[in-house]
């Protein structure tokens, strides 16, 4: 990373964030906003430090439920995407059902999951999974569908089976779509886990914030939000790094028809 790039990718966002916090602090102090409406960043950071033990404890639960749900979604989404992209009949059969399922707000499913699995981490993992497999499946299927018909002809003329074409062309071709969808999926999984925790759980950041809100400890609520934001960025960055590592050719070869 040269200096210019460093300034652009590290210094610039850090400076922008600092300015944002300063403005926020300033607004709270100048207008004397009550702590129960909008705590200033200094109050939030103080709460963050004071309650660091329960926050870390709960953040850990949110993190692992998110990642667990996301991993299940990755495996399932990949398999489903390949199935959908494999054959027009499978596509025609599954796709409408999938769209219908995806349009159900997942908050509405959480009570059912709690009914089945009880209060605990399982509903959070499942909600994270249910909300995040869809973009993976759709992206993989799209990637498979973009195989050039002419290339397929070249391979079919050589006696290639459907499986050969998938292995040699379809799946490698859909990998950039797959890895690209992971960024979206991890964000969704995170949302799913937290939503599930706010509906009913005994642990997790969502639950912590819900309890804090009930007892008017607003700085803790905001501290929770802050941790959520940081975790969200970290999860996103992790998948983005995986993406560029595995599909460098798609970025460099972007100009290649």
């Amino acid at each position, binding site marked *: 990373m040269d200096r210019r790039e460093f300034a652009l990718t590290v210094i610039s966002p850090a400076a922008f964030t600092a300015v944002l916090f300063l403005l926020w602090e300033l607004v709270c102090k100048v207008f004397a906003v009550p702590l129960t409406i909008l705590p200033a960043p200094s109050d939030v950071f103080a709460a963050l430090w004071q309650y660091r033990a329960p926050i870390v404890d709960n953040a850990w639960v949110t993190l692992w439920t998110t990642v667990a749900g996301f991993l299940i979604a990755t495996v399932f989404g990949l398999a489903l995407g390949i199935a959908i992209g494999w054959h027009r009949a499978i596509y025609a059969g599954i796709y409408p059902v999938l769209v219908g399922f995806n349009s159900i707000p997942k908050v509405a499913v959480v009570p059912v999951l709690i009914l089945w699995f009880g209060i605990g981490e399982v509903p959070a993992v499942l909600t994270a999974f249910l909300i995040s497999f869809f973009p993976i499946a759709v992206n993989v299927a799209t990637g498979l569908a973009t195989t050039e018909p*002419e290339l397929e*002809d*070249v*391979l079919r*003329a050589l*006696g290639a089976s459907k499986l050969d074409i998938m292995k040699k062309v379809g799946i*490698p071709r859909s990998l950039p779509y797959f890895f690209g969808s992971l960024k979206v999926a991890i964000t969704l999984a995170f949302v799913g886990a937290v939503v599930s925790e706010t509906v009913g759980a005994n642990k997790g950041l969502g639950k912590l914030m819900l309890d804090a809100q009930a007892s008017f400890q607003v700085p803790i609520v905001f501290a929770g939000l802050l941790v959520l934001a940081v975790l969200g960025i970290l999860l996103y960055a992790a998948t983005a790094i995986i993406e560029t590592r595995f599909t460098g050719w798609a970025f460099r070869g972007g100009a*290649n028809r």
Partner: protein
Amino acid sequence: MAVGSTALSALVKLDRVSMAYGRGATAVRAIEEVSLEIAHGEFIAVVGPSGCGKSSLMKLISGLHPPLAGALTVEGRPVRGPVKSVGMAFQNSNLLPWRSALDNVLLPLEIVRPYRDEFRSNRKQYAQKAEELLGSVGLAGFAKKFPWELSGGMQQRASICRALIHEPEILMLDEPFGALDAFTREELWCTLRDLQAARKVTVMLVTHDLREAVFLADTVYVMSNRPGRIVKRCAVDIARPRDLDVTYTQPFQDIVHELRALIGGRH
């Protein structure tokens, strides 16, 4: 005349073959009662207006699409599915961007029997063969390059190598030089001419460039508008080896003009 096609046996034989896309009332007739013969080692070109069924004819002969009527044989056997003794290349090089030029050329060997079964153990030997082939089209030293590091003409050369690596009987080229600039195109004509002369492979070239067809082919077939019929078979009586200069001679121009008149359209 360099090639006496009557002396050679027919590799491909079409006897009043028709073909359509779809079935019933909505079927699109692409080819109507086409009869032609391609001899072993012959270089034929098929020309005709856009949409007349040239690509369909290729699909038909390679066994990718079944005929509706008529008899189609390759090496004396009726075609009932993909004919493995075919190598294909198109206007778009269709190289896989995640593979180097070498690995792209090796792709058919990972698929065609018997090569695929021995691919792992013979990889070194295959790679050497691919490198030699790349060298023969002027891509020596580019084997490790990825497609985006190659110019359009180079990609097309690599694509032709991919079509030839498994030593097919017939090389089928569908407007392979259509997207290239005039100079690169003429360079590739010469590359293809030399490849064919050296390997004695049978070539079916689909093009809408009449000069290209006459320069490269032993026989040029002219197709009519859809549904495609063959309206003219024209043997090109120009001695081989042909130099690019031949394209400026009167006999060459005469043939081009004659073909041009047959295709019609705007003048």
